[in-house]
């Protein structure tokens, strides 16, 4: 396949992912609204919001890093997307996945947060600083159980290629990592709660405490970029977990259903729990998910 076709399909995939991401977040908000007993936003609200954000006339800036923050963040999301095989067995939608893509994706996951840190600090708002320091410390602790789970997977499947891991899970539901390596799955799924940033682990943004953390000073198109990224990131993150633990997807439909359910997991927990304080959440991640992660490794040692 020549590079042009490849790029075309990458962009097509990106387009689908972006739109699905926005639809998914709107749906989740509607589900949350239902529990409260209301209708919630219209399905198309995220798109309008995005257009609105890009079309604001004023946008003050605090310096170069302020510009680059959202760009880095977007780079993190796009990076994850670019190296993530979306549809198993599809030549067109496997993007630029390669043998060691899992490591690169783990890196990109963190990269966005670092970019945010740079941008937020340029914004010079103390809430941004508090938020980002919380974000970084929480993300660091999320990484630990998640990495343990992935190491366990690597040991289990003897590979660091996502495609290979997905391939290994084909042939029936009982082949999914969920059943073959439940402890790693649990460790990863618990740390996923932190990665998605719903309560009880949403103290990074904590809207009624440090409004709203890192993006406090971000607005107009900057915020538009951040929101675009969030839409992509949520899907890609869900796809990563789908690939690693839930047998990947062989079609877009399967991808949509699975990523929805994975994302829903965090909403499911998030709606009914308040948030932890930062040291509580750090302690929690270093306790339960870590324990499962260690067990997962020990089993496959």
């Amino acid at each position, binding site marked *: 396949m020549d590079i042009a076709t490849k790029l075309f399909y990458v962009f097509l995939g990106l387009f689908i992912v972006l739109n699905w991401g926005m639809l998914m977040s709107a749906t989740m908000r509607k589900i*949350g609204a239902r*529990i*409260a*007993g*209301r209708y919630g936003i219209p399905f198309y609200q995220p798109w309008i919001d995005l257009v609105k954000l890009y079309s604001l006339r004023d946008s003050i800036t605090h310096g170069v890093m302020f510009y680059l923050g959202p760009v880095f963040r977007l780079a993190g999301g796009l990076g994850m997307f670019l190296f993530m095989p979306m549809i198993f067995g599809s030549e067109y939608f496997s993007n630029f996945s390669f043998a060691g893509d899992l490591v690169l994706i783990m890196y990109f996951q963190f990269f966005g947060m670092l970019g945010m840190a740079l941008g937020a600090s340029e914004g010079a708002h*103390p*809430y941004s600083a*508090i938020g980002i320091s919380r974000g970084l410390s929480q993300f660091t602790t999320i990484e630990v159980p998640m990495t343990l789970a992935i190491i366990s997977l690597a040991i289990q499947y003897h590979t660091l290629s996502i495609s290979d891991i997905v391939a290994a899970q084909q042939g029936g539901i009982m082949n999914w990592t969920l059943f073959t390596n439940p402890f790693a799955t649990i460790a990863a799924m618990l740390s996923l709660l932190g990665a998605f940033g719903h*309560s*009880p682990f*949403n*103290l990074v943004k*904590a*809207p*009624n*405490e*440090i*409004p709203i953390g890192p993006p406090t000073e971000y607005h107009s198109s900057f915020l538009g970029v951040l929101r675009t990224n969030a839409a992509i990131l949520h899907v890609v993150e869900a796809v990563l977990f789908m690939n690693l633990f839930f047998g990947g997807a062989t079609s877009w439909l399967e991808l949509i259903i699975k990523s929805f359910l994975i994302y829903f997991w965090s909403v499911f927990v998030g*709606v*009914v*729990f*308040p*948030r*932890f*304080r*930062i*040291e*509580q959440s750090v*302690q929690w991640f*270093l*306790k339960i998910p870590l324990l499962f992660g260690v067990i997962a490794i020990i089993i496959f040692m």
Partner: protein
Amino acid sequence: MKKQKNIFNWQADRSKYPEKKKNGKLDIDMSSGKFVKLWQGPNHPGITGNMSLELTISGDEVVEAKTHVGYLHRGFEKLMERRLWIQCFPTCVRMCVAEPDYNEYLLAKSAEELSGIEIPEMAEWLRTLVLEMARLQSLLRTVPGQAGTLSLGVGVQWGVYLRDLVLDLFEELTGGRVYHMYIIPGGVRGLLPDGFKKRMEEVLKKIDEFVKNIENLMFNNIVFKKRTIGVGYIKPSWIDKYGIVGPNARAAGFKRDVRKDYPYLKYNELDFEVTSEKDSDIFARSMVRKKELIMTIDLIRQIMAKMPKKGDIKAPTPNVLHWKIPKGETYVRSESSRGEYGFYTVSDGSKTPRRINLRGPSYTHAISLLERMLVNANIADVHSIMVSLQTCPPEIER
């Protein structure tokens, strides 16, 4: 305070930070770089109303806190000095947005006491009902609101919905949704509409169910417990020292309730027990409020059962356009959902009050007490502490 002994819950002993100077004052040197000033409010979403906090933080910990108020100052006490007694009545209502009825009642009560007017029995019952409904609607917002500060928004949504239903009842009875302007010096402004009892019972049933749901969602919630138990502790010795009243005092084991201690209106004909808890932390205060919610529902049922069918709603008063109240002064109090709420009224015998001073519970809670409680608190806990005290800025600055 409960000690957490689990090794995973290890916490550094921060009590010696920041260092104190020899004279006992905190050694806060902003230029050292160890401290950051953090302003919260007035347009901060976590602040209860329009006020602001000036926090000096070191790490995640508050070392000094100052409350800034005055963003809502309208000079009520001054304005009422140039209004007729009857004109004070719509004015004073606005002193506390959350429960305006206590203002109406206290003004009416002061005026009646100073001029020696007895109000009809029916009006007394209706006043009691309205005050309890006011407490109900306020608690429906504040009980789940405690979890709301910790981003558990669902309970708030349910609560505010039910509060809306109570406001509908208010609208039927009084003609107003938020500012009811119902208790007028001399009586009240209307009888119960037809079928009111039935609709009230329907709403109360929904609230019963809500209490169960909120119990499951909030009070049996592990994260909520973790965030509130042992946090925001008020020493029992502070109660008198800081003038703490209402649920905040009751959560510390002090069974003080104006309704019981200084019965007014029809409260001595109603059957209720003063609620209390002993742990004196945020969780205990939440529990007290929840119990109070249950008690209020019960009280409203009792009132509805005992309410006479018919009766006068207003005692004859002098022509309100030139009502002169004899010289004198008095202090009347009532129990709002935040605690003792009182009016100190001075009349010089003219058509306008000489002075009306409001003693709001938030005045002490939100300033001296909050400033003390926030020291050594985590930034993340600042708002739950503030909300647990139920500070209401409009009544602080009036």
